[in-house]
């Protein structure tokens, strides 16, 4: 095989990068190790004995996708992506019987919060409106290689809002949570959102993760019919419509380098694939430089920095449950008659104390007894995910990559899956005897199946020193590498994980700029 460009990894970012290059007239070949496209964003029958159920092993919903460049530029709807509007966007239940629906309408959401704390409801509106303005500044930062800090500073003016933005960017989430909200429940919301980056609530800079919720009010939440894998499927169709090629079950073992330039790749079976112009890797950067390139081609000082990329001991487990009935959240007022209980993803972290307990359990390398859980009940909005009359549920939480006492994840899988299920059933008790089957993907499974180091779906941690112009390292942040013709994309590059297509789009723009096909900035 031969191509102008080889893209290693058929996740949505690799496919997006390939599609942009193909659209610009380049000859592109995507090599994917699995027989399924999508990386951490696939949709698959995950319970072998129940093939009629489709689950999302990783990502599940889309925030603000209609505003992302790849949605428009690659015409994803024309290529078969059907988006279902998730409204209400989220549900947060609490053990005291309260619950909050998060609607796209900010003021409707505030009315929900006011049933718990009128003061927090007012603060929520002010807080969202402030961060919405901050995110307006993020758009030009995220839709390309990260600008230098000097460039950003040249646009900054002294103002109370800019000072507040900079202050919060340095704050630990715990301080910001207590400063922002009074009620235990809304503090729990703050903790849940802050923990999305898998940083502790006391890590400086962890406060910023709380603000992701703001984007949902402005961009909306969507769920692809047929599962999140339909995003990658649509991008793949776009890619092929431009003449691009995709080769599944083609695991790459080595990136071939000669005279300081990339020449192609070698597959695990030994076959060599030549790249006339270059290679893009859409996999974890540490895998690329430490495992796929002969080390004589790289400076030792650079390799030392790559070895010390932070990929902490916090990974993900996702479990899937085939159910014979939909959940009924009776402890929080669901009598079964209101469909809005069964549409949104649910968030389980009812308080900061709960989050602290979870984090302590992870630090002790235990399966959390207080799991932080994203809960996605797919069939409430998309019946196609299960056979008629049956239902599909996905739960995921953070867990240690390495369990204490060298306990193997294969042995611990069921305990972790059932602990999440039991936690969910505390809010949906009708499901306790409705389980038809289950399966789970542990950190070990993620590593073996998808190839992400230590089961980290972010590739490397989302911490202040590994974001923006530092992701994955300052010298790699513009997607170029020390090897001529070798580029990076994927979750381990700016602006990071989530199904946005932004890393893929941004890498493609830099390649096209280097080829002279896009005007230099």
């Amino acid at each position, binding site marked *: 095989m031969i191509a102008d460009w080889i893209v290693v990894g058929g996740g949505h970012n690799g496919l997006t990068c390939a599609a942009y290059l193909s659209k610009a007239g380049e000859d592109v070949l995507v090599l994917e190790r699995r027989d399924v496209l999508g990386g951490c964003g696939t949709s698959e029958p995950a319970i072998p004995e129940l093939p009629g159920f489709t689950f999302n092993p990783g990502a599940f919903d889309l925030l603000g996708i209609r505003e992302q460049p790849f949605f428009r530029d690659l015409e994803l709807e024309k290529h078969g992506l059907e988006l279902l509007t998730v409204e209400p966007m989220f549900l947060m239940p609490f053990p005291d019987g309260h619950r909050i629906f998060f609607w796209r309408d900010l003021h409707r959401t505030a009315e929900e919060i006011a049933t718990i704390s009128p003061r927090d409801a007012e603060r929520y509106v002010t807080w969202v409106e402030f961060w919405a303005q*901050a995110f307006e500044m993020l*758009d030009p930062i995220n839709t390309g290689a990260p600008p230098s800090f000097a*460039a950003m500073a040249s*646009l900054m003016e002294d*103002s109370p809002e800019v000072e507040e933005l900079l202050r919060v960017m340095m704050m630990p989430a715990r301080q910001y949570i207590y400063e922002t909200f009074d009620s235990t429940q809304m503090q729990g919301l703050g903790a849940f959102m802050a923990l999305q980056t898998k940083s502790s609530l006391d890590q400086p800079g962890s406060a910023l993760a709380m603000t992701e919720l703001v984007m949902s009010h402005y961009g909306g939440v969507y769920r692809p019919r047929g599962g999140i894998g339909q995003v990658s499927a649509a991008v793949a169709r776009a890619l092929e419509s431009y003449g691009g090629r995709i080769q599944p079950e083609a695991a790459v073992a080595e990136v071939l380098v000669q005279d300081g330039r990339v020449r192609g790749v070698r597959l695990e079976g030994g076959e060599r694939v030549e790249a006339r112009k270059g290679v893009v890797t859409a996999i974890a950067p540490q895998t690329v430089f430490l495992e796929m390139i002969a080390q004589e081609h790289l400076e030792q000082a650079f390799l030392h920095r790559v070895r010390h990329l932070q990929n902490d001991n916090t990974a993900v487990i996702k479990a899937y449950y085939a159910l014979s009935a939909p959940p009924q959240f009776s402890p929080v007022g669901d009598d079964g008659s209101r469909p809005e209980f069964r549409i949104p993803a649910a968030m389980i972290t009812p308080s900061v104390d709960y989050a602290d307990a979870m984090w302590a359990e992870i630090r002790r390398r235990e399966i959390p007894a207080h799991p932080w859980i994203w809960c996605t009940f797919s069939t409430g909005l998309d019946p196609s995910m299960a056979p008629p009359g049956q239902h599909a549920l996905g739960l995921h939480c953070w867990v240690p990559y390495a369990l204490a006492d060298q306990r193997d994840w294969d042995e611990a899988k069921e305990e972790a899956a059932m602990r999440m299920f039991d936690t969910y059933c505390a809010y949906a008790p009708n499901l306790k005897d409705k389980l038809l089957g289950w399966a789970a993907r542990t950190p070990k499974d993620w590593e073996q199946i998808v190839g992400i180091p230590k089961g980290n779906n972010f590739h490397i941690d989302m911490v202040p020193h590994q974001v923006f112009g530092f992701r994955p390292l300052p010298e790699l942040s513009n997607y170029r590498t020390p090897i001529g013709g070798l580029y990076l994309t994927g979750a381990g590059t700016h602006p990071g994980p989530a199904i946005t297509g932004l890393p893929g789009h941004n890498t493609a723009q830099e390649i096209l700029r280097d080829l002279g096909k896009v005007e230099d900035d």
Partner: protein
Amino acid sequence: MPTAQRTFDVQAPAAMVWAFLSDLERLGPCLPGCTGVDLLSPTEADWRMETKIGFIRKRFVVRTRTTTLEAPAHAAWTGESDELIASGTIDVRPRAPDRTEVTYRGTVKGQGPARQLLNRYFKSRLDRDIDAFVANVRTALQPEAAPVSDP
């Protein structure tokens, strides 16, 4: 560089349309973010601009120069500030005694240390701002339409 072009009709005679488009002090407020125009000479002017990105409010002055003037049908201009370089053309064509076709074409490119960011910002805003400009020109010449001034 980001480029936008619009062709639109105005319910007004061509002479009136040309007179309006040539009068920069009257034309300026039609451009989103323009807070005023100071004429320096028959062919040069300072356009005072204010734009808001999130809570960053940026004020700057773009000096424009008319490079081609073929009254009453065609004009071309360039503009520059520390932050950007711009250029454009306007073509006016009578379609009927009280109807005129206007074609506006504009490009803008960031410069300076923040040019990358500015280019992305301009790219995201240009279509919207040009649409607002068209709507405001129509309003000025067809008073029954509603103005758009969002910077």
